[in-house]
């Protein structure tokens, strides 16, 4: 199946915010927006739900901390207890600092790896350059042609909403 994508390029943040919201409200199929920086409010304009990555961070942070407490207990009090200055085998308060560090390490690194995984970013991946200059100074609004909005209608919309450039891409996709 071939998808016909139309891309409108905008010059300013105000224009892309207005255009993305209008396209969504009119019922067009907004595939994505490409932008050189994080535009505050665009997630509302596009109607995107918040990310679920905080749950990954929380779960891995808690498991990291739990693992570390168990590991410190097991090595210090069970596997090979060593008498250090007469301190109790199970010196829980003394385990706090390392437990905290390991929690931060687990939570931080795993969130970043989860982000790479979900966003499909990896070394050597080819960037899908749907629209030119979107890593520099242009905002690209990508709309797919549907039965309700054919290519001329979308083009008219782009012109109305002050797009500075319009381009088209055909994408082959296994159905």
């Amino acid at each position, binding site marked *: 199946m071939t998808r016909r994508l139309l891309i409108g390029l905008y010059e300013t943040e*105000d224009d892309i915010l207005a*255009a993305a919201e209008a396209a969504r409200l009119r019922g067009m199929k907004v595939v994505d927006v490409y932008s050189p920086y994080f535009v505050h409010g665009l997630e509302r304009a596009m109607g995107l739900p918040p990310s679920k990555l905080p749950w990954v961070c929380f779960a891995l942070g808690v498991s990291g901390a739990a693992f570390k407490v168990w590991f410190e207990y097991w090595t210090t009090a069970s596997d090979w207890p*060593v008498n250090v200055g007469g301190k109790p085998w199970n010196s829980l308060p003394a385990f706090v600092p390392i437990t905290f560090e390991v929690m931060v390490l687990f939570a931080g690194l795993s969130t970043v790896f989860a982000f790479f995984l979900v966003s499909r*970013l990896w070394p050597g991946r080819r*960037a899908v350059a749907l629209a030119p200059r979107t890593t520099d100074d242009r905002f690209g609004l990508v709309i797919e042609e549907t039965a309700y909005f054919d290519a001329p209608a979308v083009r008219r919309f782009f012109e109305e*909403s002050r797009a500075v450039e319009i381009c088209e891409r055909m994408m082959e996709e296994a159905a």
Partner: protein
Amino acid sequence: MAEPVLLAPEPLIAGGKRPGQVTSEILATTERRASPLWWAGFLVAFGALAAGIAAVAYLFSTGVGTWGLNNTVGWAFDITNFVFWIGIGHAGTLISAILYLFRQRWRTSVNRSAEAMTIFAVICAGIFPVIHLGRPWLAYWIFPYPNTRGPLWINFRSPLAWDAFAITTYFLISLTFWYLGMIPDLATLRDHTPSRFRRRLYAFFSLGWDGSFRTWLRYETVYMLLAGLATPLVVSVHTIVSWDFATSVIPGWHTTIFPPYFVAGAIFSGMAMVLTLVIVARKVMRLEDYITARHIDAMCKFLLLTSGIVGLAYATEFLTAFYSENRYEQFVFLNRALGPYAWGYWIMVVANVLIPQLLWFRRLRRNAAAVFAISILINVGMWFERFIIIVTSLHRDYLPANWTMYRPTLIEVGTLVGSFGLFFTCFLLFCRFLPVISMSEVKGAIQFGRTRPGAPAPEESPLPAEVHP
């Protein structure tokens, strides 16, 4: 008639930039040939690094006897430099994480270089505890791994073990934070650079970033989570470093004031180092529109605050010693201020507490040359603070027969010079090959094409929102 007073805040980025201009101006230094000035700086830094490598090689082949340590003073230059560099490494995360959570938007111009500085400073710091071990090739024994010696586990009750975990975590999280923040900019570099080889290199490291807003949304979430994790982390790291001292029963070290005192001192010295680097970088790389007098002013206020905290800590230590009626504690502090290392103590007080008071004057905060000079003095003062804390508590201990003096040898001085060489070599390479200012954040901070809440709307949007099936 008097001039009308402008009440609107100064813009964060001067010169009314457009996004495309931001890209080309920030990338200019990475895309033109290195200037003779850069080469001069690089050669000096690299020469210092080579001297350091020679000093460490001599140390490894001969032994710790090449240092000026003795039975009484077992920690001196090595640990001073370790604490000094770790302290420098604290400003980066403060700027990138804590100021991010507090929505201090001026951080966007300085966070990239401050984070880079953090990473290089932590690398310099990490070298010292390793080389001060008698057998540095066994340094990995600090980490618990299943070994053939039992397995014999490490002592999780020891602050030195905590320290190893804290520094390692801090390094890894800072590196991740720095790299994550740089991915969008690496993609910009990839699409901008004319050289094919560099384009492929940047393409590899930018992980195929294409600016998709779905990715941006997750990216912002992750950035915020990392900032939230790094904020307690940065406080924990210097706290744990201070426990290396505070959990021992040495007068002058065994005190509960150490964690806040060390954390404030770390931010103080780190901010001073950021100012030192940034004032030079903005001049040489012509980035005055991005790092403006307003940025320098804001960082100077941080110096003023932390200098006050450090000064209060110096005074509190004396009060505690006096009030405790503990003769050993009292002796240590009198010895610091009036004993054989008093010159170092007074350098510390003058440079860390008295000179920064000049920053109360707005005219001085806005004078880059004056701020540069003050920041250098603070760096010196903070190095002496660590030296005084460590050496004066040790060199006259409980037994007067053990009293002695400590004097660094040429090898130790060479190692310190080498660590500065490593730091500046890394920093100069960073300035040459990576964007020193976060372009994607600055583009979000400029005024171009954005209606601020409360500002008059430009013109009516031509888009009536019609709802279709």
